[in-house]
């Protein structure tokens, strides 16, 4: 069983690994942080104050019940045929607070965090910031942790032009 502080330290490190993989454009490393059966979900806002809660009945920005959807997105970037990522925006993620939720499973880690991502668009010389909260569920198998579930709350949802996985 991990102590609370060790949970937070471990989660901090795992989240930093994800952010670094995105900012350093190591797309395959980023994908490998996710379990093939992961859920990746960024709900939409219903209005100013409430998020959609049921991805089967309400709209999401992104909802994937496996890693396959993320693999699509990586392929699209790599193809160099997608105008929205050409030239590729530069990103620098910033990690905020991390809080661990209690769990009795030694091979599970559930945390909530705040995140932000500075995005520079080389094509228009503009910088934007996307930010919000996340909830991660990690699971440990064969000695390494993988993301089993990530739910993203995009707070800056008046979106300038586009928002892809590497901005989140």
């Amino acid at each position, binding site marked *: 069983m991990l102590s609370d502080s060790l949970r937070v330290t471990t989660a901090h490190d795992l989240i930093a690994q994800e952010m670094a993989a995105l900012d350093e454009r190591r797309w395959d490393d980023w994908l490998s942080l996710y379990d093939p059966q992961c859920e990746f979900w960024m709900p939409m806002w219903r209005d100013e104050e409430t998020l959609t809660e049921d991805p089967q*009945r309400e709209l999401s*920005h992104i909802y994937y019940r496996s890693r396959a959807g993320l693999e699509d997105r990586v392929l699209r970037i790599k193809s160099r045929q997608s105008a929205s990522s050409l030239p590729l925006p530069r990103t620098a993620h910033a990690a905020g607070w991390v809080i661990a939720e209690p769990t009795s499973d030694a091979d599970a880690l559930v945390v909530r965090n705040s995140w932000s991502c500075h995005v520079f668009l080389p094509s228009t010389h503009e910088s934007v910031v996307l930010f919000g909260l996340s909830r991660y569920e990690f699971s440990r198998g064969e000695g390494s942790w993988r993301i089993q579930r990530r739910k993203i709350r995009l707070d800056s949802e008046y979106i300038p*032009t586009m928002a892809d996985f590497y901005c989140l």
Partner: protein
Amino acid sequence: MSYTDETWPVDDAVDQGRFRVHARIYSDPKILDQEMAWIFERTWGFLGVASQVAKPHDFLTTRLGRTNVLVTRGADGLLRGFVNACRHKGALLTRLESGRRRTHSCPYHGWAFDSSGKNVLVKDVECGAYGAAFHQESHDLVPLARFEEYKGLLFGSLNPDVPPLAEFLGEARPLLDLALEQGPNGMEVVPGRSVYTYRGNWKLQMDNGMDFYHLTSTHSAFMDLVQRRDGSRQGNTDARQFDWRQRLTQVGGAFGFRYGHAAIWLEQPQPEKRPLWPVIDELRSRVGETRARWMLKLRNMTIFPNLQIADSTSLILRTFRPIRPDLTEMRAYCLAPIGEAPEQRAWRLRQFEDFFNPSGLATSDDTVVYEDCQRGASPHLGWLQGFSRGMASMSEAPNAEAEELGMKPAACVKGPFKLQNEVVYHPAYREWLRLMRAGEANLPAYQIASEATC
């Protein structure tokens, strides 16, 4: 330059095989001011969907041109549209985009209005030592000059002299009905909406919403993903996306209508990918074989000036609002039959999210290309040449497709997908020019009386 110059900035000479739009139309700040005054504030504008304000006291807020609008359903069940501002000092009455309120209290001095727009409180009125004139004035919310509903779509106008909504939508109504009558209990906006901006002119979205020609170039990366999903069952197969390469071999066309509306259509080779497919028998028995078949086709339409309904991938309703000549706000909603079965609803959502939205795999490429257009289309570029495809295959007489839908469009085009017609843009720019000329000449936007007599 004046809008009455024959070729400025829309050169509408179809009889000579020519239709051109000047690049300046996308970037001139003066033109945007005129569009606000002479188009958005003088035509019907789309406001919202009745399902968003389904119950008494439900409200939504939006804009018509530069005016903030409140749509609210009264205790009597009736929908009304108002200027969203307190009569007292003009503060926004509500800054919420939607909700349910029996009364709206102004956050500034506390005047209150009920859900039918009636003033129910002037705070401390008895101590106010008002003159008699004040009490003789109405303190109720200022109603929109016109407010009407068409099968769940809510429209308003700041101009009292617009034609009745049914006449304004005119011959486009049978096509609208194909989107609005897909459910036996009506249609609803699925909870969740995306709001985004792009650094480009609003007309770039207006054009792109009916643009076949860009699909094989702008969306080639997306098409490749879909091919891979179909070929190797890898990737986001939950989206049950259409095989766009099959679509490219189909027959399609366009309809142009009066008042700037237009639509494109395409035969749909994979009806089984439509979330409507499992209920096709219900559809056929309720709306008939012909219209059920049409509900399965790809159909994208523009109701000028601010509404697009596209049934290309999943059913999307988009509305756009110019902020600056080079900045546009988009709102996108997913429309679905009320009471749709859970399996079909989830299917619809996955299709929608895959393609649309600023986080989707196709829309994001479109919006970035609009920005390229904005940056590229300097006034010095002169006339744009993107309004000519299909010119030689246009007919004014209704074709078989129009006839089977019972429509009399102003123009029809039909041909193989690769025709990728651009004449579908003509009605909007023609109406744009007509309204700008009327505005410049200080004439009414619509010649209502004379139309009624002819």
